[in-house]
């Protein structure tokens, strides 16, 4: 069964159509990578999924329910979590407070354990007392991911999570996604092809706001139209 489903999802900004008529199905338990050249509409697309921006037309269904009219906080209450492409943490609060705010639905007594676990999973356990704004860029990215994990979502949307991470941190991230797979459906916007190839079950390619291709990673890599979109070579 599809956990997430869109039909005819479209967003226009004045004259520009950022996302056009996208039908998208994401089955429960899958890790899906969303790729495409810069400006393909990836962030706009996921922003409409979680209610950050409203679509011009089209519908979003989550867990069998039409959520198109719901504001962001209600969709998140249903079990979506979103991590920002441009790091967006609470810089003047500590790492622990950041994750604590994310673990919103947990009773305060249970919070400590959940918090420690989320930080440990991304490898930030030792930094919980630091101010988020004092962390290195890579660590702030990891904090974003920890804030997503702390929500224990049914669907975790990660917008370019590995941007700015070191190779070692990227390896750790791959292992983390594999470990999460059993419990969470993941939608991942990613530019790093080694991450896409190793962790994604399926890949969707967006180009000029439309779905260009969809399939298993190996097939996508071999797809000539995808190569053309990325490299500008004639299809």
């Amino acid at each position, binding site marked *: 069964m599809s956990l997430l489903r869109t039909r005819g999802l479209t967003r226009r900004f004045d004259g520009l159509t950022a996302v056009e008529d996208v039908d998208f199905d994401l089955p429960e338990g899958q890790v899906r990578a969303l790729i495409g050249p810069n400006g393909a509409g990836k962030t706009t697309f996921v922003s409409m999924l979680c209610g950050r921006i409203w679509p011009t037309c089209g519908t979003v269904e989550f867990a069998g329910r039409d959520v198109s009219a719901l504001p962001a906080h209600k969709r998140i209450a249903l079990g979506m979590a979103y991590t920002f492409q441009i790091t967006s943490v609470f810089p003047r609060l500590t790492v622990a407070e950041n994750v604590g*705010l*994310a673990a*919103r639905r947990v009773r305060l007594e249970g919070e400590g354990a959940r918090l420690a676990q989320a930080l440990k999973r991304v490898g930030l356990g030792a930094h919980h007392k630091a101010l988020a704004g004092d962390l290195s860029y890579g660590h702030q990215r990891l904090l974003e991911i920890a804030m997503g994990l702390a929500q224990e979502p049914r669907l975790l949307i990660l917008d370019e999570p590995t941007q700015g991470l070191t190779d070692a941190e990227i390896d750790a991230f791959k292992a983390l996604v594999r470990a999460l797979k059993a419990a969470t459906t993941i939608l991942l916007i990613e530019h790093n092809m080694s991450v896409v190839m190793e962790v994604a079950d399926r890949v969707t390619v967006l180009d000029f706001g439309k779905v260009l291709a969809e399939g298993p990673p190996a097939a996508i890599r071999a797809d000539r139209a995808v190569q053309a979109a990325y490299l500008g070579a004639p299809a």
Partner: protein
Amino acid sequence: MNEGLGKSAALHVGLIVVLAAIQFVLPEYHQGNLARIMVLAGYAAGYNILFGYTGLLSLGHALFFAAGMYGMGLSIRLLDAAPAPALLAGLAAGAVVSLVIGVLALRTAGVAFMIVTLMFAQAGYLTILLMGAYTRGDEGFVISQAQRVMWGIDLSDPVNRYYAALILFAACLLVTLRLLRTRFGRALIAIRENEERARMLGYDVFRLKLGAVVISGTMSAASGAAYGLLFGYAGAGFASVQYSIFPLLWVLLGGAGTALGPFVGTLFMFYLIDLSSGLTTAYMLVAGVVLVLVTLFAPQGLAGELRRRAWRWLP
């Protein structure tokens, strides 16, 4: 974290104990001043909930202060109410007015929010002037000594008045500190720090901000009601734009987003004007220069600076 909690409790309870004890040695003049400062610090504490902790800058809090003052004062003047129900009427007026203003003004943000709150407060001020038949407009009205006896305690007596002011201030301080320990309070800080992120973590940002406006407005109204009752007067001047600027100034000086800041700022500002006006008729010039210096060298306010330099745990 718990260590900070102990220190914070010691500091704030300590302040209340010191304020309770100092009354015995203060000359009458300063005793009266301090009573006034404590009531106004309650007002500033209310302002601080919205400005310091939620990050919303209102320029219309005089409306809430006046709602409390007139809710209380008019119930005594027109309905001959006893002080306790009159105070409750003041609180209720503040809660209702802040709820309505909140629902309307929170449709805006940033500069627009400042202007909308300012305009509502001006409309409130003009309403008080227009309803002169009941409010006696600018001139205001006196609440007589006989009308200020609550549960057999004469609130016009300086010592009683001092302790009543202390109770109000302590209540505002404790509400602030308690609020910061709740999820609601922490969510307000999250909104101040990064509203979009808070929204995308699933917080209903509008409702949380509305809650902050109502708590802030009601606390301001409680102080307005207490001010009228303790000092026996209600006048339109308290609804003027000046009284919207005061709490902003006190909170900025004392330290926005610190529980102690509103009191520190109010005390500092009150005595700055009091002392400099004793020296020269150009006392506003002296006050202005000192304010510029504080802003330059303690941009986070006095208590904010203290937190930055020494007491990281200060809530």
